[in-house]
């Protein structure tokens, strides 16, 4: 692995949905082992941008992504790039908790098993360590073989994070991971993000300004598919340089 300063960079990234130009010329660098928050009003393209980083937009008919995504010394926005390997190394957690209709154990073991882990012992270890990293182990260790759907929403979301961690990714893309959760579950997820950034580079989309201020190191403000301002989170929330940013974070629109 190339141990440079940035885990991921995008260069002039554009996303089109048919005629709609949803993301415009976005260039952002993501420093290794930091949390970057993407904020902005609904429909500003932040989720679309996030989903293009692990090529999830490939699944959407009529979506086209142009520009460069630099990951590990390679431009991965390229038809020849190994998309499955990329998705393994850049994990994603979605807005709505989406555990599989399987047991807690199988939810975690599913990914590693597909990617070649066969020994039961090894799978057991992955399941335990992933659940520990997601701060869920103590709550579920006695019911690993029960349905994941019986967990609470907050637990389900941490299970989804554990599921992503089971593949040992380098980057975590979090698409409003706490927006469907109650305040207690939300604070657990935020705490978790703080712990995870020691080992992972995290990019999080959030609607919650306080959340962005609490957990991120740098913040990018999006508006109508464009990057308005990118800076240290402290800077953005105390001394924004652009009028639009200030209006948004002080709640004057959006």
């Amino acid at each position, binding site marked *: 692995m190339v141990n440079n300063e940035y885990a991921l960079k995008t260069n002039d990234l554009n996303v089109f949905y048919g005629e709609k130009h949803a993301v415009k010329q976005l260039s952002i660098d993501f420093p290794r082992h930091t949390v970057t928050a993407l904020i902005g009003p609904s429909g500003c393209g932040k989720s679309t941008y996030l989903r293009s980083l*692990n090529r*999830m937009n490939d*699944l959407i*008919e009529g979506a086209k992504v142009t520009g460069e995504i630099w990951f590990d010394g390679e431009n991965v926005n390229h038809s020849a790039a190994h*998309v*499955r*390997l*990329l*998705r*393994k190394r850049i*994990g*994603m957690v*979605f807005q*709505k908790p*989406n*555990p*599989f*209709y*399987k*047991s807690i154990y*199988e939810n975690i073991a*599913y*990914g590693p098993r*597909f*990617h070649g882990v066969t020994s039961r012992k090894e799978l057991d270890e992955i399941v335990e360590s992933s659940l520990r990293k997601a701060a869920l182990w103590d709550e579920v260790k006695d019911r690993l*073989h*029960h*349905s*994941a*759907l019986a967990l609470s929403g907050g637990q389900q979301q941490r299970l*989804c994070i554990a*599921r*992503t961690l089971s*593949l040992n990714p380098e980057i975590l893309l979090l698409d409003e991971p706490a927006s469907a959760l109650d305040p207690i579950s939300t604070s657990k997820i935020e705490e978790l993000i703080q712990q995870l950034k020691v080992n992972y580079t995290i990019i999080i989309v959030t609607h919650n300004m306080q959340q962005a201020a609490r957990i991120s190191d740098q913040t990018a403000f999006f508006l109508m598919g464009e990057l308005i301002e990118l800076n240290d989170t402290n800077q953005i929330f105390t001394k924004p340089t652009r009028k639009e940013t200030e209006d948004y974070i002080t709640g004057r629109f959006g």
Partner: protein
Amino acid sequence: MNTKAKDRLATGVFYAMAIIIVVVLFGLLSYILFHGLQRIDLQFITSPPEFMKAGGGVGPQLFNSLYLLVLTMLITLPLGLGGGIYLAEYAPKNKVTDIIRLSIEVLSSLPSIVVGLFGLMLFVNTMGWGYSILSGAFALTVFNLPLMVRVVEESLSSVPREQKEASFALGITHWATIRKVLLPVALPGILTGAILAAGRIFGEAAALLFTAGMSSPNLNFANWNPLDPASPLNPFRPAETLAVHIWKINSEGLIPDVREVADGASALLVITVLIFNIAARWFGKWLYRRLTAS
């Protein structure tokens, strides 16, 4: 009339409709069972029919119905799964797939006698299989495939999209996602479709008259060599099913106890379908639990 009264009226109407359905169903069922059960005993279920005198059974016909069910499902299930998976997961949205869907709609509304005559032409004559279980199984496949394809497609499409995204985001292939994530969730819907299809196989007569035939050779139930003409397993022998037998003895039967045999066979048919339904649902539940840990 105020809102409250309207609400009460609507509730009453729906209750009345539900009661009508239940009454009709139970009336029919108890009529069939009341008349038929008197005739059903071990001898009736196991012995072959008589042609001139009273006291014959429907053993071979019952076996034929079950064997035809197995053969038809062996052909229908893979084709139906394949077609349904294609339409739900791989088919692009364009003119060609619109035409495929339209053809399936049309195929599903074909009268079964037309399917039977088509089977006579293609399987019995052109393929040269004669009146045989195999011809019957293929004709019933034509009859059931549209239903099966639609059910599989709809069951797969109703799996939440997030499930698929979650799997793709783990770098897992489309095919593995279909097998490990989508199909287990879609299983109850697919199973319901398969049970409906099986019920149609048991009950179908018109499509079988000219394909599986209206006679059953003397079967030797000790002979399990599928290539032997006297073996019950031989797929190239004619095979009159229970439903066809009921129709035949009612229209041209010479035995004095036509009424009793028809009643008994009808009741036996209903009971077989019932047992099959319950068993299939129980198995489906067990499988779903196993696959989803619920």
